[in-house]
């Protein structure tokens, strides 16, 4: 239940963010239906909103989507699905479904599978309904700044990363990348200051 409410709130924030950054309601809904991965979706609208090209938006979102491939690797041996069922399982392989499934591990394989499918499908339904609501709401607003939507978007991003800032190392990386992106904004073409920080993460990850 608390998962649903949180997902709903993120969905509204995403739908509103997409429209505030120039996407249509249909495009916002397609992103939620087809991409169905919160961080990637926020990244696409964020990079485009900052004036970035389609390529840099896709690249940024895809780097964030690599996470889901790793979840697939973890889930595949437990799910053992083929054909169309594997296609559906892949689409709902996200943070929440994988997290719940792994949480059920001590209770056996059936509980894991149940957790994965129920959570994945439940989040899918909520996420898409609330995306539509957020997109329609933002569309009705007109000047999004008068409603504070220009600040709601970065606040939503911040809410996404906050739980990941578990130690001093992660916090330093976050602050460093934020400062780097600001410093590069007047110099590099739009979108590149953001994606360049992925290389900082890779360099730091290789060295550590």
């Amino acid at each position, binding site marked *: 239940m608390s998962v649903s409410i949180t997902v709903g709130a993120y969905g509204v924030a995403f739908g509103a963010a997409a429209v505030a950054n120039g996407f249509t309601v249909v495009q916002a809904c*397609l992103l939620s239906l087809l991409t169905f991965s919160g961080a990637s*979706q926020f990244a696409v609208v*964020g990079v485009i909103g900052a004036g970035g090209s389609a390529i840099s938006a896709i690249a940024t979102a895809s780097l964030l989507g690599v996470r*889901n491939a790793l979840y697939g690797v973890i889930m595949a041996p437990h799910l053992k699905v083929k054909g169309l069922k594997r296609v559906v399982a892949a689409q709902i*392989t996200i943070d929440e479904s994988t997290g719940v499934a792994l949480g059920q591990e001590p209770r056996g394989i059936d509980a894991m599978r149940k957790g994965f499918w129920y959570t994945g499908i439940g989040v899918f339904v909520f996420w898409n309904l609330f995306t539509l609501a957020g997109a329609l709401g933002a569309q009705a607003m007109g000047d999004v700044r008068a409603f504070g939507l220009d*600040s709601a978007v*970065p606040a939503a991003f911040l809410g996404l990363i906050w739980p990941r800032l578990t130690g001093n190392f992660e916090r330093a990386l*976050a602050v460093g990348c934020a400062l780097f992106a600001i410093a590069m904004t007047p110099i590099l073409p739009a979108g590149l200051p953001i994606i360049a*920080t992925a290389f900082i*993460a890779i360099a730091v990850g290789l060295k550590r």
Partner: protein
Amino acid sequence: MTVQIMTTLWIATLGTSLIAFLLKYSGHSVPERWLSHPKVQRINALIPIALLSALVAVQSFSEKSQLVIDQRVVGLSVAIVALLLKAPFPIVVLSAAISSAAVYNWL
């Protein structure tokens, strides 16, 4: 110009969706050892932190390719305070929006 922007949005929407699915599907289909290397795992944990922090910064302090300081700084500061106070996500976003809108409308 408008046609160009619409095309950019569609390419971004559909391109992201296609790659997102291929990534998810590949995880279910490639041999486990390809992706379970500890370095891959570690880098994968760091990439969202880097990209999303950069996004927060750019979305808060830029207007196209110019750096600006406006009502969004207030919204961001309020969001940080809310997160430090362990407020739930909807409160974080709402308090940021309300404070930013207040500055934009009344100052």
